């Protein structure tokens, strides 16, 4: 009987499948690349008016006199997104812990459904709610209160206007909450029950078991959820545009009106006259793209830094 050849061809189905996956994966990268190239092409005429450095670090934005500085928009985008993440992460983690660790089994599907519903509301509706409910409330109640309580911080000084970084950040917080919360819930569900039991077996209370066994295990997954939320906040346009105040200035106070990269693009694109103004808006798109990449990379480094080594330190 002849020996079967060891070097048989790999299964053709396997090969076709892996080729297909390769094409799909490559297509994803190609689409991203094409978008960047197209934006770059549209933005090219801007080069004759301002340098890259002037564009990224300039603070003045006045298309009628060819002043194109994007820094105020970058600042507004970063500040509103950070406010959103800072507000949404604790709420999401609390919600996740409640649902997975404490809530009776009957409550879980109801709350999960409500969270998913939040994600399904169109962003323009969030904007309307922000404009008619959130902004007046901030102006009359929240911002005066914050000013009195925390007015020693530059973040909470100045007149309570309502429209501004804080309003945009809070709207974004509500919008990214479903993302972070559902990921947190999924991650908490993956924590092995043997770890919880290990903590209970040592005489841990429920809260101690969560802190000692559940959260450390889930930490990197929760941070991943926060990153996805951050990405969504950076790019969100409509709701932010409606409540940010659309003022191209850099202000320390969260009460002050500002502007974000996506909002400028949305507001000015329709009336952009001339090649240079259009080019500048495409340039803002590139800056937003770069900002997203940089923040994601930073956050990933952060995750690696905290994810390494034991949680409780010494020795």
């Amino acid at each position, binding site marked *: 009987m002849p020996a079967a050849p060891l070097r048989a061809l790999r299964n053709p189905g396997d090969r076709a499948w892996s080729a297909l996956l390769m094409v799909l994966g490559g297509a994803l990268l190609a689409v991203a690349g094409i978008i960047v190239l197209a934006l770059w092409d549209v933005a090219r005429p801007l080069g004759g008016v301002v340098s890259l450095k002037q564009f990224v670090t300039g603070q003045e934005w006045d298309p009628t006199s060819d002043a194109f500085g994007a820094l105020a928009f970058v600042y507004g985008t970063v500040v509103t997104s950070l406010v959103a993440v800072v507000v949404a992460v604790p709420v999401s983690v609390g919600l996740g812990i409640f649902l997975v660790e404490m809530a009776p*089994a009957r409550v879980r599907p109801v709350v999960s459904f409500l969270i998913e519903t939040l994600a399904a509301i169109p962003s323009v509706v969030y904007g309307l709610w922000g404009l008619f409910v959130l902004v007046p409330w901030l102006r009359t109640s929240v911002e005066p209160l914050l000013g009195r309580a925390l007015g020693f911080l530059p973040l909470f000084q100045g007149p309570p206007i309502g429209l501004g970084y804080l309003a945009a950040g809070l709207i974004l917080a509500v919008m990214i909450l479903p993302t972070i919360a559902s990921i947190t819930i999924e991650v908490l569900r993956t924590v*092995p029950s*043997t*770890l919880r*039991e*290990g*903590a*209970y*077996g*040592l*005489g*841990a*209370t429920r809260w*101690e078991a969560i802190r*000692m*066994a559940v959260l*450390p*295990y889930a*930490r990197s997954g929760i941070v991943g959820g926060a990153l996805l939320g951050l990405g969504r906040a950076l790019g969100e346009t409509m709701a932010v545009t409606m409540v940010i105040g659309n003022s191209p200035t850099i202000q320390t106070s969260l009460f002050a009106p500002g502007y974000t990269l996506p909002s400028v693009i949305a507001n000015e694109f329709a009336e952009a006259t001339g090649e240079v103004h259009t080019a500048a808006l495409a340039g803002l798109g590139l800056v937003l793209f770069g900002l997203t990449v940089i923040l994601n990379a930073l956050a990933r480094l952060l995750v690696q830094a905290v994810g390494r*080594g*034991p*949680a*409780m*330190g*010494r*020795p």
Partner: protein
Amino acid sequence: MSAPAKLTAVDLHAFFRGTEVLRDVSLEIPPLSVTAIIGPSGCGKSTFLRCLNRMHELTPGAHATGRIELDGQDVYGRDVDPVHLRRRVGMVFQRPNPFPTMSIFDNVAAGLRLNRIRGDHEASVERCLRQAALWDEVKDRLGASALGLSGGQQQRLCIARALAVEPEVLLMDEPASALDPIATAKIEDLIHELKTRYTIAIVTHNMQQAARVSDRTAFFYMGDLVEVGPTEQIFTTPREQRTEDYVTGKFG
């Protein structure tokens, strides 16, 4: 039995989602000795163990009735905090479950921190690791992750972690079933050492193990406690036919 029992179960019934998984179990666990609990899969032996420190009730849909006394005091009493009970009745689980994000040191110190035990943690950790016969293997890498240890070392780490709380009773739920024979032998030697200081109840699948490590053996079958007695008697002259069939390998 001369000394009064450390742990006593009286008319214990345990339920899981309406199914009775333990029926009317009464059993005494004498102090400073090893009581083995044997029986085929699903006989309720793990459930029994988990009733002793009220871990059973943490499973959704599970509850128990009857009495369990620790030094004569009902642990299911209205004013008993199960958290406090579990600090006196520690537990080692079937699969080693060290806290994966903590170092070796922190795993052992976790119980000390939980109980807000002050003083020299380093000395306590060393003492527990020595008691668990792990110190020599890990003393040079206490800061390393607990996940870098072998399965047998992880299980001894979990024993050290349980000892750090200074429990009076140690419940072991098939502590060696996921380990190789050498690691198993180490755990068994360790049980011999530990019974001079702790009262031990061990659930095991392995009848040779029960015969080697225990002073008394209880045989569970289908939710009933069939027979309990000195280990030698259970394995040589059992009173019940079912016990004899099981220990001679006719089923299970």
